[in-house]
């Protein structure tokens, strides 16, 4: 598994191998000792090809956001490897990471919390250029900021306004312009449309898809809304309690989900069509996601699984290939 080279495939931009992010739990005040760990991400592997969108879905606490932060080295991985554009970045120090930060940027969920309220749109969008020393030529800097503002569908005269003057959708456009300032290759989007109203959500989804086509961007798209993820992703990885349980192309996953959790997750999403809904079997998954502090033995999904076998409570299934481009970790599916 861990060969000495860091090479990625020809069109592979990001590879994550057996990523683990554990947060230690301490007890005691004077003699602090570690009493356990929250295994937020516990052995996650995936790769992303240049120009594609990998959707990472799962319910709260599944570790999707922590995975994203670890990929950007914004939280420290406990174990595993992150290879970005052919380079192992898992242990790079801050100074060595700095030039790479230009290549990987993030768009956050909350456009109200992620923009400094005291900065004008112009400065918010231009700040990354200044930080990375790309604003020496005043005229070129001004042009670049104007381009970015136009690129995300804002009007030139909005550049001198402050974030509070904008609605949620427009703020998310500002955040996207800011993320694109340094011409990144990879954009990590963490629930970028979840806080927006549906009519606005569609605007931002379309914008992200247009930008991807125009700039050749690669997206790691994290969301809990399976309809949005389906719409934007080429491939999808489904996470449950710190692990990937299934990984497949969009069509494979939605047409023929293999993992019982994926199946339940899809069944839980209502389709906006009453006739169709009336005909759909209403399969309701029992129980709730257990605490990451005490994950169940064996397969972590087994206490809620409608198809659990005796071995599911004792033996943890591995994520194994079951056909072209798809992997599943479930005892019901024997590898091809």
């Amino acid at each position, binding site marked *: 598994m861990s060969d000495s080279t860091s090479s990625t495939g020809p069109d592979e931009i990001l590879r994550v191998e057996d990523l683990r992010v554990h947060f230690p739990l301490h007890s005691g005040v004077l003699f602090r000792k570690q009493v356990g760990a929250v295994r937020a991400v516990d052995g996650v592997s995936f790769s992303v090809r240049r120009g594609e969108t990998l959707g990472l879905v799962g*319910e*709260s606490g599944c570790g999707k956001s922590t995975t994203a932060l670890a990929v950007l080295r914004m939280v420290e991985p406990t174990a595993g490897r992150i290879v970005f554009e052919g380079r192992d970045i898992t242990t790079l120090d801050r100074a060595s990471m700095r030039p790479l930060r230009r290549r990987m940027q993030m768009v956050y969920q909350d456009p109200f919390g992620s923009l400094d309220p005291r900065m004008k749109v112009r400065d918010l969008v231009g700040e990354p250029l200044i930080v990375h020393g790309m604003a020496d030529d005043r005229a070129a800097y001004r042009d670049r900021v104007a381009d970015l503002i136009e690129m995300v569908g804002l009007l030139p005269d909005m550049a001198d306004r402050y974030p509070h003057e904008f*609605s949620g*959708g*427009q703020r998310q456009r500002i955040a996207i312009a800011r993320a694109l300032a340094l011409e990144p290759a990879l954009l990590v989007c963490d629930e970028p449309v979840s806080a927006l*109203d*549906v*009519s*606005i*959500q*569609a*605007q931002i*989804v*379309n914008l992200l*898809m247009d930008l991807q086509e125009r700039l050749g961007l690669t997206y790691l798209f994290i969301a*809990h809304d*399976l*309809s*949005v993820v*389906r*719409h934007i992703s080429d491939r999808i990885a489904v996470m449950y309690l710190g692990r990937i349980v299934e990984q497949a192309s*969009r*069509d494979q996953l*939605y047409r023929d989900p293999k993992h019982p959790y994926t199946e*339940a*997750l*899809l*069944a*839980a*999403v*209502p*389709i*906006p*069509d*009453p*006739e*169709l*809904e009336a005909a759909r079997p*209403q399969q*309701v*998954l*029992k129980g*709730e*996601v257990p605490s990451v502090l005490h994950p169940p033995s064996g397969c972590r999904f087994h206490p809620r699984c409608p198809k659990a076998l005796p071995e599911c409570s004792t033996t943890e299934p591995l994520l194994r290939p079951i056909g072209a481009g798809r992997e599943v970790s479930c005892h019901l599916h024997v590898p091809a």
Partner: protein
Amino acid sequence: MVQAVDAVSFDVDPGETLAIVGESGSGKSVTALSILRLVPQPPGHLDSGSIHFKGEDLLALDDAGIRAIRGNRIAMIFQEPMSSLNPVLTVGTQVGEPIREHRGTPWRETASEVASLLTRVSIPDAASRLESYPHQYSGGMRQRVMIAMSLALAPELIIADEPTTALDVTVQAQILALLKRLTRETGAALILITHDLGVVARYADRVAVMYAGRIVESATARELYARPRHPYTRGLLDSVPRLDSDRRRRLVPIEGQPPDLANLPPGCAFAPRCSRVMQRCLVERPALEQVADRHHRACFADV
């Protein structure tokens, strides 16, 4: 002055689920709060209108009169179960409170009733969890507690304001299926306030779509989704990605931004974003008119 809700009319029958859908600022929550007179006054003010509940005008009641109805014959379930539950009182105490309050039953006698209520909302091992505090329950369990509390006095109407927005999808499905089952069992009417068109399609019998404080269209759920007659409803349906839609179909967003309620245009509030806008829409506000059986809409265009 902000007109959060402007001349809204609707009705709901026993056993029926009416969904009020709209985006943020559409006035759907204020409408719900107004029914039980829960809008703080001041600054809020209910200018005019009437709310008939089983033939009685709720707006004509005095404070004692509305208190006798609130929680007793009309119950409300809020979005955030954590902030609606008191963190320093046990779950058992809180679920039992409406029973003691409205019926004067002593605490000892409510315990078994509370346990059976919690069992009805599928809380496992309910009797032993009465002494637990809300933080010891998960988000989904807390919402079940809220539902149990709302059921305590067998209300004839339940108003649920975004009851599952804070929950994961698999838990959302559990909670909504539970609400649907309970209203079917008890014959209570349900007003479901939501922004989620999928939830409406799965659970509602009838729908009222709100925009900028007004109902712009109302119909049975099937009719509304099959034959939307208002450009805003159409726009909403076209803008949501669907689990069953064609691959990479481009979403059709509603262009523009939601309106500023303090600064509404004189004509139709949706006119600035409407693809079918006409001169008349800018100066005159369309009234809600019947276009088919049980189907109303407020629009001048021939949609």
